[in-house]
């Protein structure tokens, strides 16, 4: 055991000596091999970063929430509400109204989304939602509102609306093909804590009203939809299926959980694409290592003969050549991971544009450079080095010492 370990250490040292003798060639090979890990780390970590971010957001939006929207020619009524809330696993249900409006915040006019619904249900469903000042208005206070963080203050943090202040909201809607504008005044009952930007629900730019405000303040006749709260997240798929069976195409059902699953599978597909793409770079790297190592073996034809004369076995010669390839790829792997991480941060800096129905937003997420990504990348890169050295090592093993020693 000891002599073997000693030999491994020496083989590594001799491999290093041999590489540093031809620095430029080693460097060029290392650069060639490093492209694979750079691409792999950069692409996978950026995709993972975005998908982790989006999945995190979706999780904060409530894994237990199911939203039912009416189809084009369908109106949701009290009897639908009753039917939906009697589905097994549904613990609470409430209709909701949404509208789009504009509020003056400091010197700027800010676009806001207005929701009118059972606020208790909403707070139960969405754990990230918190009231930091004031209180949640009751059902009998239709004029009282919770305002989003960036409605209560401007971007610089100057508070514009406090509890008790009136807020004038310009509500814009399309009715019979014409844009209709209404002005309503609500009173701040409470201010929401920062929710963080979310591509789907943007609570920082929202106004939440009790359900009764839908008719009385927003003057809306139709429910926008119905919110259902499932007892457990695991029941959501069943509830979704039940509704689809009941209504068919008459309504559409949205569960954030379902969206999360779609996002996760898209992210997974993108990761696989990134991985496959980098494999091309890795394949080229195998050829590169092979070319370098074959040249090195041919140049050292006589030297390898001398080593064999001194008593190095064919296996020891093979091992020394493999070590050289391994060393090339290990250095390239480390450089690749570092440069790939740097490239990932540069890519992620530019952000990722999501064009939503109401808003276009740029999300910026830190690339996910996980230990397992680093380990996998190094492992694949090292395999490249070994794979590229197999043929040269075999060639070296086959060199007959007597012939090599005659060779001038």
């Amino acid at each position, binding site marked *: 055991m*000891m*002599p*073997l*370990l*000693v*030999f491994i250490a*020496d083989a590594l040292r*001799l491999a290093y*000596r*041999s590489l*540093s*003798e031809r620095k430029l060639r080693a460097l060029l090979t290392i650069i060639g091999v490093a492209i694979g890990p750079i691409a792999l780390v950069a692409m996978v970590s950026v995709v993972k970063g975005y998908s982790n971010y989006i999945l995190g957001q979706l999780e904060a939006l409530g894994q237990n929430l199911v939203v039912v929207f009416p189809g084009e020619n369908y109106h949701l009524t009290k009897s639908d509400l009753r039917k939906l809330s009697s589905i097994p696993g549904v613990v609470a249900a409430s209709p909701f109204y949404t509208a789009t409006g504009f509020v003056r915040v400091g010197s700027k006019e800010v676009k806001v989304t207005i929701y009118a619904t059972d606020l208790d249900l909403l707070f139960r469903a969405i754990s990230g939602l918190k009231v930091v000042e004031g209180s949640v208005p009751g059902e009998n206070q239709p004029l009282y509102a919770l305002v989003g963080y960036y409605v209560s203050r401007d971007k610089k943090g100057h508070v514009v609306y406090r509890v008790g202040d009136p807020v004038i909201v310009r509500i814009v809607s399309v009715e019979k093909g014409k844009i209709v504008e209404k002005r309503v005044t609500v009173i701040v009952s409470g201010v929401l804590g920062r929710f963080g930007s979310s591509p789907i629900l943007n609570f920082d730019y929202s106004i939440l009203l009790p359900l009764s405000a839908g008719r009385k303040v927003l003057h809306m006749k139709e429910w926008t939809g119905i919110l259902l709260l499932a007892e457990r997240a695991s029941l959501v798929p069943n509830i979704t299926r039940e509704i689809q069976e009941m209504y068919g195409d008459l309504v559409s059902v949205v569960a954030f959980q379902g969206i999360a699953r779609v996002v996760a599978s898209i992210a997974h597909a993108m990761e696989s694409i990134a991985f496959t793409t980098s494999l091309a770079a890795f394949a080229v790297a195998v050829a590169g290592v092979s070319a370098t190592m074959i040249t090195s073996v041919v140049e050292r034809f*006589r*030297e390898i003969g*001398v*080593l*064999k*004369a*001194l*008593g*190095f*076995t*064919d*296996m*020891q010669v093979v091992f020394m050549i493999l070590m050289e390839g391994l060393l090339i790829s290990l250095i390239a792997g480390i450089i690749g991971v570092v440069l790939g991480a740097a490239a990932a941060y540069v890519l992620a800096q530019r952000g990722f544009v999501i064009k939503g129905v109401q808003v276009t937003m740029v999300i910026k997420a830190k690339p996910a450079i996980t230990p397992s990504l680093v380990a996998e990348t190094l492992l694949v890169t090292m395999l490249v080095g070994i794979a590229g050295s197999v043929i040269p090592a075999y060639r070296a093993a086959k060199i*007959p*010492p*007597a012939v090599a*020693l*005659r060779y001038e």
Partner: protein
Amino acid sequence: MPKPVVELVDVVKVYGSGDVKTYGLRGVTLTIYEGEFAAIMGPSGSGKTTLLNMMGLLDRPTSGKVVIAGIEASRLRSSQLARLRNRFIGFVFQQFNLIPRLTVQENIELPLVARGVPRRIRARKAREALIAAAGDPSWLPKKPSQLSGGQQQRVAIARAIVGEPRLLLADEPTGNLDRKSAAIVMKTFMSLNERGQTIVVVTHDPEVANCAHRIILIRDGRIIGEQEPDRSKCITRIL
């Protein structure tokens, strides 16, 4: 009776196959005994290197037997031959064959690296071997290119003896050296032999062959006889 170190029995070596056959050896029977200092002398192309390769297990005979330290080598696998070379044989070549990017010390240590000997022990043995080969320990950290040809050949001798082989084989060790350096190298061989080292030197230079105890004459792949050396004609007399 002295013990044989290496025995060749009717060794034939044919190079190539089919129409282009070349005879390296045409049936050589030869025994080298422990403590001997033998010179193999013959003209160019007579089969000296081929004979040395047979004794050193660097190549397999086409027919015949090679027995080294009592072991019949012809049926061994190449990894076993490598191990026998490492244990029993030291080589010195005409072109020194030192590895230029390694230091003198690392070059001398190579046979022990193959054996998996730890560094500390290797460093000590390399130093001892270099001193025994009439070298200077100050060369140890140097690169071979910083030494003269004669000095490099003494490093090569140190590398050949560091593993304490039973048989030291040298193929034209003075072929690339000036007379003075050649004389120093032969003096080194003589003093190693005085301390019990078995040595076989291939040469076509009578001044070198006359330093040995026994001169074996080879021509055209056959041993044609032996000759009594005349030590007064040994090259070391110029020192």
